[in-house]
């Protein structure tokens, strides 16, 4: 089962590394990358300062595996990667990184969108928004 979790924010160097690793695959013509970044949302005058992520890790890995298999069935892809943060990610930090590669560009946008939506709805990850005043509320996906 491929690992998907990283502790804390996903560093831009990690993303650069993933990109560089694909440059030896000469059948790839198009990459599409989605990054979710923690936004300083305001709720009733309180500002989000971080999101704290927890997960049912074993089930999440199984689900991510199923999603990968389904994506390869559904789209013409060369490879795909899903990464998600656990623990604390401060505003401005990247908490989800989805990376799709294919011979041609046609399907990569749709594949990325589909994958991000699958991760949000099917993978047991739980985000808690921490406000600057240290109050918190459970994140609700829209």
């Amino acid at each position, binding site marked *: 089962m491929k690992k998907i979790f990283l502790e804390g924010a996903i560093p831009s160097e990690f993303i650069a590394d993933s990109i560089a690793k694909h440059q030896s695959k000469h059948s790839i013509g198009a990459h599409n990358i989605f990054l*979710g970044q923690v936004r300083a949302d305001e709720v009733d005058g309180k500002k989000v300062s971080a999101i704290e*992520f*927890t*997960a*049912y890790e*074993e*089930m999440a890995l*199984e689900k991510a595996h199923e999603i990968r298999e389904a994506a390869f069935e559904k789209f013409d892809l060369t490879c795909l990667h899903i990464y*998600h943060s656990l623990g604390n990610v401060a505003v401005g930090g990247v*908490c*989800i990184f989805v990376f799709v590669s294919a011979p041609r560009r046609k399907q990569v946008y749709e594949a990325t969108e589909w994958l*991000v939506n699958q*991760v*949000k*709805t*099917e*993978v*047991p*990850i*739980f*985000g*808690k928004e921490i406000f600057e005043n240290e109050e918190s509320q*459970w*994140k*609700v*996906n829209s």
Partner: protein
Amino acid sequence: MIQVKYFGMIAEATSKEEEKIDVGEKPFSEILSEISSKYQLGDLSYQVAVNKKLVSDFSKLQLEEGDEVAFLPPFSGG
């Protein structure tokens, strides 16, 4: 004995992340409602997974020794 796991706002309500429960021959639905009343989960929204699979039809399910039951509030990754 089964392993029960709680996540997110459910773990906040139960004040624990996991526990072992002796279920004997009780039907699954009865176990679920005992846990729900013990921790007053009635107002919370959650799904239940058994051995990492979401369960939609509780009536057909009979737990076995060592099963893992998880209480999962709405997913909010990403």
